[in-house]
């Protein structure tokens, strides 16, 4: 972590308004993208981000310098979003130990991946809520299964199985999208 960021964090801890504004401007874009990923609408994402920022400033004293500050911020936003939709998410999860592994053929099919982020957004949005959340937490935001299990209050095995299913589901969705695009081009 760079010295400038550490000094900025220290100023924020002392309640300096100017430092708080600077920290907000530095990370709000990244955190709004995270918030949008875990909510169903832009309005919800704005509410979640606002609550998350208040939590960030109020609990800045608990941040340990040994950890990634960006990861800490990201986690607060995700936790806030999950709290926002906990009921909805709880219904979406169920213990499912049977993992679905991608076959070598599946992986071969995605050897030459070429999707835009918008296409990926569309495909991920089609995942069931439970699958989608675990997939985004693990693959996009880089949380471990143990952390995901804590955040979502589910079993680690459930997190793993949800990820496997999500991966397979997403590959199907992307394959279908590619096929549709190919047909449109040919016609």
């Amino acid at each position, binding site marked *: 972590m760079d010295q400038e960021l550490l000094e900025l964090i220290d100023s924020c801890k002392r*309640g300096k*308004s100017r430092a*708080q*504004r600077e920290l*907000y*401007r530095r990370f*709000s*874009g*990244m*955190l*709004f*993208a995270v918030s*949008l990923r875990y909510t169903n609408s832009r309005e919800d994402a*704005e509410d979640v*981000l*606002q609550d998350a*920022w*208040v939590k960030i*400033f*109020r609990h800045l004293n608990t941040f340990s310098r040994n950890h990634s500050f960006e990861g800490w911020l990201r986690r607060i936003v995700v936790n806030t979003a999950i709290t926002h939709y906990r009921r909805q998410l709880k219904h979406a999860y169920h213990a499912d130990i049977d993992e679905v592994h*991608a076959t070598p053929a*599946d*992986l071969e099919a*995605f*050897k030459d*991946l070429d*999707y835009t*982020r918008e296409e*990926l957004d569309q495909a991920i949005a089609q995942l069931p809520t439970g699958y989608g959340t675990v997939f985004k937490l*693990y*693959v*996009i935001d*880089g949380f*471990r299964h143990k952390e995901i299990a804590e955040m979502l209050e589910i079993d680690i095995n459930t997190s793993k199985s949800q990820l496997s299913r999500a*991966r397979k589901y997403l*590959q199907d969705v992307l394959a279908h999208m590619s096929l549709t695009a190919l047909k449109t081009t040919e016609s």
Partner: protein
Amino acid sequence: MKFDAFEQYIHDQYQGHEVAAPLEMEAAVMGRLWRIKWARRVSGAVLTLAVGAGAIWGWSERSVPSDYAPVEVVQELPTIEAVEAIEEEVVTAFAAAPVEVPAPLTGTEEESRVWPRPVRVDPLPYLTALLPVESACPEGHTLQSTESADQLWVISAEVEVEH
């Protein structure tokens, strides 16, 4: 963390992804922080006052320890005989005490004495309202006003002279 090629591809796609937050959100967040800060200050002040008031109350209620150990005191009531003896003693002493009678004033002394002038209260309005002066003085006593501020009672008297 081990990503397969598919997961790694998606992870990379989202690296550094940012979406501009609405402009008004910054003011909203800062406003909420400001309100929280002031709410904390006010509640802190209230708490300090409450603790201070409690301390003062506790101090005033605290009992002051004595330097001396408490001693049990038993007070016996006097008997009737003892009381009667004391009473007799007091009465005897009172009877035996010399009585000082002041010497009568001579005529000169009496005239030279200055008596304080009484506060003038005009009783006439009250008396005349209740009874006529004549009936209030059945034996011939009359109340007359003089030129001075004092009233003068004139009492009739019969003087018998023995020859």
